[in-house]
């Protein structure tokens, strides 16, 4: 009998020890040596060497890898450390969509809602049969005319006008006032304005500024033990969901881990799997309908997450050939990266100040995957 009890306890312990689903970074991340998880430390060194190379014209500020629920790699450049928050730039968009998912769960919002109810500027669409819906905003497919260039096109950039000159007081209204160029849902055009319009619709649905201000903390950050988050608003009190969220690398890895765990956090379902899957696995239909130039022709997008999918209608292979098709990413200005790799049970965070050149993302991840066994 005693033997049976010992056997049962051993079985239970071994199951929990190797079931990654039961490991949560609450309240703090667990750390393990790479070799403890069969990660090749020499190959991991090659990944580190590339990311922090002084011979390249990119500049990594922080790099963190969480594998099977444990941090196995973490390095900070001088002047950065694990307590310091870093700007996420457009990775902010992926956090915004998480909030939209939570609002969908709470029935505050529907993907079929019409933003024109809150923004009458959108009433004047020439495409009456294809009214703009929240769904289109989540997929960057509004049909609104928008130029997302930054330094490359400072004079024509709508994102610069929105953030700093014509639209900074009310970014959603600036976006809603852009001409409607295509029927909603038919053209993929990455637009920071669409995220801020989406965040303004969320504000309207919540209906109370104080509740809205606390919504990201009450519904997401506190549950995930994200204590470093700072999220800036425009003068109209709308979160700048496109660009202005700040947090530490460890906290951003927590957010990534929520998606890796399909919306679960310990026993709590923060974000229904239905929405995680829809945002990160379902290709926005407009991507296949829109022809782009250069590397952009192979870019794939879900809903506020970049995907790595083949595009058979366009006869294009996935953008990052060394990275699995199931991976998805938050990507921000100046080289910010959040990579979620379900095939390897892995989250990677890279903060950067790539003002001169950009890192080869495919090479970076392929070096990492050479060190880390798939699950």
């Amino acid at each position, binding site marked *: 009998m005693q033997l049976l009890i010992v056997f049962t306890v051993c079985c239970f312990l071994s199951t929990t020890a190797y079931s990654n689903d039961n490991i949560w970074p609450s309240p703090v991340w667990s750390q393990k040596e790479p070799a403890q998880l069969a990660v090749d430390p020499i190959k991991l060194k090659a990944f580190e060497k590339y990311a922090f190379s002084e011979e390249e014209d990119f500049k990594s500020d922080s790099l963190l890898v969480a594998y099977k629920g444990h941090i196995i790699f973490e390095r900070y450049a001088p002047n950065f450390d694990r307590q310091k928050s870093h700007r996420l730039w457009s990775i902010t968009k992926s956090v915004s969509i998480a909030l939209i998912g939570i609002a969908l769960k709470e029935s505050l919002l529907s993907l079929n809602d019409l933003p024109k109810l809150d923004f009458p500027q959108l009433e004047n669409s020439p495409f009456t049969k294809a009214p703009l819906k929240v769904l289109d905003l989540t997929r960057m497919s509004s049909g609104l005319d928008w130029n997302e260039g930054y330094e490359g096109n400072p004079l024509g950039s709508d994102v610069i006008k929105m953030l*700093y000159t014509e639209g900074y007081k009310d970014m959603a209204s600036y976006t809603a006032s852009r001409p409607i160029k295509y029927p909603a849902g038919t053209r993929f055009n990455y637009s920071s304005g669409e995220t801020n319009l989406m965040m303004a619709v969320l504000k309207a649905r919540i209906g109370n500024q104080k509740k809205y201000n606390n919504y990201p903390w009450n519904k997401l950050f506190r549950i995930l033990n994200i204590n470093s988050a700072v999220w800036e608003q425009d003068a109209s009190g709308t979160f700048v969901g496109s660009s202005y969220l700040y947090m530490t690398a460890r906290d951003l890895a927590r957010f990534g881990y929520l998606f890796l765990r399909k919306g679960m956090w310990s026993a709590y379902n923060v974000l229904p799997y239905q929405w995680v899957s829809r945002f990160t696995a379902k290709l926005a239909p407009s991507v296949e309908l829109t022809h782009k130039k250069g590397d952009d022709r192979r870019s794939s997008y879900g809903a506020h997450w970049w995907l790595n999918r083949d595009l058979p209608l366009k006869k294009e292979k996935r953008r990052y050939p060394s990275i699995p098709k199931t991976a998805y990413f938050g990507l921000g200005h100046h080289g910010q990266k959040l990579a979620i790799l379900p095939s390897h049970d892995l989250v990677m965070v890279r903060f950067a100040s790539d003002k001169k050149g950009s890192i080869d993302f495919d090479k970076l991840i392929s070096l990492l995957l050479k060190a880390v066994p798939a699950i």
Partner: protein
Amino acid sequence: MKKLLPIPIALLLICAPSYLFYKFNSWSFPKVVSAYYAKEFCSCIYIERRGLAACHDYAAVWIPISSFKWHKKSKLITVVGLSRTSSAQHISSQLGCRLID
């Protein structure tokens, strides 16, 4: 004997600079220099805590600014660049900085 300029050329020489001056003043683009500097310096110093030199370096664009004022008590940063003035203020520990003017 001095020759007078033809009237259309004289008008052009008078009107063109005035028109360009008017267009420059009504053009929103020049504000980006001071607005970017004020907002991103504010976020850099109060949220990211990168330090003074690093934050000035981060906020600078290729066109230099002509004035920088930091009112530490009110956490207000005011910058002048390309004849445009912009101010950003640290609002709170949760909501960070905001371009206010």
